[in-house]
């Protein structure tokens, strides 16, 4: 009996928390179905209206939403693929091979994680300018295509889960270095890769400050920058801004719901390990 009351109270507590977590999404959806006057009205209108398609139509009229969507998808995918490739290659090498200076190089790698990123905002921009990369996707993709966190993550995973015997066996079969990586290690590393991939993809998808500084031409905008400029330029047509916000949020939420279960437990495991 006591457990029963406890359980009910507990679920009420959790449900309230959940409601707070979910409410802004609901609110976003409600506002996206309303006119600008409705949004500005006080008391606020708390239930859905009928303007959703109309608002979305105006988003498409005013910004190249699909262009921004593809730009973001391209940048985030390219980042993710490159990060996965370079990080897994390096992580695997660190975990399973020995070579002079390995320990030192790995410590150096860890130390770079402490390097202050805020320092590099201005100089990085200057470097991009010197390379002629301002306004291009290269500036968004290349600097981040191998990162210390990912290498560290893959190394930890590979150390525990790639059996050395398997590598030995592969070697006896005449596999070279790349073949060991590609045919033996990669399949085993898949869970670690899927987490790193999702993590990188979400990060790249939501990145704002750096693209804001780098991208100039509207046709190259990523969703976040397009959304912010929509909010800045068309602030008077607020229902459209809100509908654009909704559109920018949906793809990632869908992706997340798709991968959520595995992703969440991977994150937790990652935190515990490090």
């Amino acid at each position, binding site marked *: 009996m006591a457990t029963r009351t406890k359980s009910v109270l*507990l679920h009420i507590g959790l449900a309230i928390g959940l409601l707070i977590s*979910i409410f802004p999404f609901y609110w976003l959806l409600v506002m996206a179905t309303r006119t600008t006057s409705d949004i500005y009205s006080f008391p606020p209108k708390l239930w859905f209206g009928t303007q959703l398609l109309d608002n979305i139509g105006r988003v498409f009229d005013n910004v190249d939403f699909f262009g921004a969507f593809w730009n973001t998808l391209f940048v985030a995918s390219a980042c993710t693929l490159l990060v996965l490739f370079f990080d897994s290659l390096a992580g695997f090498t660190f975990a399973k*091979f020995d070579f*002079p200076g390995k320990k030192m*190089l790995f410590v150096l790698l860890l130390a770079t994680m402490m390097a202050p990123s805020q*320092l*590099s905002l201005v100089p990085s921009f200057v470097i991009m300018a010197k390379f002629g990369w301002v306004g291009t996707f290269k500036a968004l993709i290349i600097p981040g295509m191998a990162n210390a966190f990912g290498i560290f993550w893959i190394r930890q995973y590979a150390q525990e889960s790639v059996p050395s015997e398997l590598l030995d066996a592969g070697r006896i079969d005449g596999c070279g270095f790349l073949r060991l990586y590609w045919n033996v290690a990669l399949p085993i590393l898949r869970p670690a890769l899927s987490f790193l991939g999702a993590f990188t993809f979400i990060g790249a998808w939501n990145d704002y400050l750096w693209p804001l500084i780098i991208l100039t031409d509207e046709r190259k905008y990523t969703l976040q920058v397009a959304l912010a400029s929509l909010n800045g330029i068309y602030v008077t047509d607020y229902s459209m801004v809100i509908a654009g916000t909704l559109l920018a949020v949906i793809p*990632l939420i869908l992706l997340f719901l798709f991968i959520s279960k595995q992703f969440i437990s991977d994150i937790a495991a990652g935190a515990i390990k490090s």
Partner: protein
Amino acid sequence: MGNPMLNAEPARAPVPPRLKGSLASRLWRHRKEYLAISPFYILFAIFGLFPIAFSMYLSFQKWDGIGRMSYNGVNNYRFMLTDPEFWRAVGNTLLIWIYSTVPMLFLALAVAFLLNSSFVRFRTFYRIGYFMPNVTSLVAVAIVFGTIFSNNYGLLNYVLNLMGLNSIEWLNKTWGIQLAVSVMVIWRWAGYNAIIYLAGLQSIPSVLYEAAKIDGASTVQSFFRITIPNLRPIILFTLITSTIGGMQIFTEPQVLAGNDGGVSGGGLTIVLYLYREAFIHNYFGYGAAVGWGMFVLIAIFSIVNGLFVQGGPTRGQGVK
């Protein structure tokens, strides 16, 4: 490293180590490994190390980004240390960090604790729900919360009015903006931290609790004597992550309140200040100096933080 180390090449008779050129040949023998790990180091040298060195140089220069650079001595640093707005930005950042981190970590702990109870059903469902804010883009979050905290049509003022209270011009008040930004941070990160704490809770062996029960310990006692000490490394981890994140907070105040951090400047954080001075006012040399100032602050802060956390719960550990 505990693991058997393997070479890419089949084992051969080792090259005599003292021979001249042996190092070079050893390095050459491992060229594939070096090649495999090299991208990171090359990228870091170009996009990590060089910018840091360059920003050190730049912080002693006067440069508007268009004309020529000219040596400026320590003037950038002097200006920074005597600029009330810089200190204001420091203060704002600290306040927002405290307003957000303390409630966030407590909430996360509470949620994790509830979720960890043995009789919770739909645990996966809750976890997904609590985690969802974290994958939402900051720009979107700032726009939505802007409508919640709005002076004129905000949901929050509506709720206040329902309770018979007067509306508050949240976004016209220093603390109002700081509160709005903090709430955004809490909303976005509490679930994330709760998931991490939950994983930590689940890794505590249940034998410990059972033993405590046999010794007659209450739930509260076992919380403070078993749960907290065992979670300590994880709490430290979340504290460090949120410190680094909190010191670098930018998008929320910028989208919510603009480049000046709002009508009353309450949202002017250090990074926003840096962004404004460098990229809006075009004082690039000064921006670099502010970057270094910020680095020093974060370093001091992390050290203090570490001491605090390490020092605090030692008593708890003694009991264990």
